[in-house]
């Protein structure tokens, strides 16, 4: 059936302006890889050049940003003007995916971690803020049974609780970000541990005494 191939190309044209440009430049090179009838080819060729495709792509990108903004708002804020170029790279390597919240959050978080570890992205706060938001998302979207099965090194803790390590005082850091303000210059540096607790259904967090944190983490 040609309809599935037609829809596949239609979708890929929206997700990638490069793909659309390739189709405009050399349609047969794209069509050769698909089972399309002559009418589907004429349709796709005409649609590729339609000015409305730019609107489709803009809406596609806005809707792909939404789950990231919902789950990683502080990270997106900290990325600031760097976010656009990072999203271009992320979307290029992940052109279309399941956009459900936990999956998309984890995928983008993995991408940012890779950027940090490779040194392409340098920022004093993003690593710990990203870990915090990722933990909040997991606690929100996974059941206690699922979290218990993946608790790893934090097996001593209840399934809906995480202890996160910060290198900056997390309370003023998160307070500033919650008001969409840059972290204060005077943030204390050191080893801080934040308990993130979702047992009530709401995610709440509090700073732990170092002795308590060490006992909880078994270190």
């Amino acid at each position, binding site marked *: *059936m040609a*309809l599935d191939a037609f829809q*596949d190309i239609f979708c890929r044209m929206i*997700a990638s302006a490069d793909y659309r440009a390739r189709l405009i430049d050399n349609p047969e090179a794209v069509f050769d890889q698909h089972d399309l009838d002559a009418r589907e080819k004429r349709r796709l060729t005409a649609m590729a050049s339609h000015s*409305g495709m730019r609107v489709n792509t803009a*809406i596609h990108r806005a809707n792909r940003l939404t789950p990231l903004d919902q789950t990683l708002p502080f990270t997106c804020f900290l990325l600031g003007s760097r976010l656009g170029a990072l999203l271009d790279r992320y979307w290029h390597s992940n052109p279309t995916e399941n956009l459900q919240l936990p*999956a998309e959050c984890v995928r983008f978080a993995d991408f940012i971690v890779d950027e940090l570890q490779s040194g392409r992205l340098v920022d004093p706060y993003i690593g710990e803020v990203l870990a915090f938001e990722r933990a909040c998302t997991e606690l929100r979207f*996974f*059941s206690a049974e699922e979290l218990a099965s993946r608790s790893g090194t934090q097996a001593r803790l209840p399934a809906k609780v995480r202890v996160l390590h910060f290198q900056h005082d997390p309370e003023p850091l998160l307070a500033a970000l919650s008001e969409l303000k840059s972290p204060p210059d005077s943030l204390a540096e050191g080893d801080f541990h934040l308990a993130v607790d979702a047992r009530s259904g709401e995610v709440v967090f509090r700073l732990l005494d170092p002795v308590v944190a060490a006992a909880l983490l078994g270190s």
Partner: protein
Amino acid sequence: MFSEQKLGIGLLFNPALPQFLETRPESFDYLEVIPDREWADRGVHGSPRFLLLEQSLEFLERSREQKPMLCHSIGLSIGSAAIFDSGHVEQIRWLHQKLDFAWHSDHLSFSRLPQDLAAAGAGPGPEMHAAISLPVPYDQEVLQLIDERVRYIRAVIDCPFLLENNVYYAAIPEEEMSEAEFLNRLCQVSGCGILLDLHNLYVNSRNHGISMEAFLRDIDLRHVVEIHLAGGDELLGFYTDSHAGPVAEPVWEMLDETLRAAPWIRAVTFEFHESSYPLLKTAGIAAQLARARRIWERHC
């Protein structure tokens, strides 16, 4: 087929609305909910696949005690040639058993596809998502495809099913039928009804020059059960269905015309995006609902 009861004027629920619902219950007659926003869908291989968001079902059940409820899903992707998600249908059925929807609706469109088209026949695999509701070609082949799926949905979920006319930004050439003809024939063969989104129609009119009057003349208004009202804004030289703020003025005129002519309309729903709440505020939402009610009461 559809309830004799006229529901009246309602709201599409969004996260900005809980306070409005509590403080202005007299302003709306029913609540329409998007079930896909009330759960996390971890994919067809997730176990459990659907995880209800904390407190969401409690909220819906409390709301259902006060008002009738409609279900308007966005995740079915009924027009996808290579995917039909019976798991999504089952989840809607489960929610219907909890909340007793007067009817269920989705969009005449597609948004989900298999990542690997060649492997699609081997069963559910990784999907890709268009992140936008895309039009299907109005062809006989697509009519047959969607007819079968509507029949399946109607057999599984024990309430009427409506499909919403779609908005599009890049027209599909050489279609075998007009949108109105496609919807008329689909209703005749499958037994579904129409959710007529007047703003979608206005958007298509603005962007593609189609005649709203001709569409309303050609569509069989006996199949229209519900109407959606919304507003939009400009993007890259197009007018979009962004649900930004109040209802677009020409949509109000169409509502008057449609309610006058359509014999079976049971509900008129105002939808806005939660990001527009600071623009509308409580008074603005109430004003939109009151204006819809004045028109409703003239004809219904």
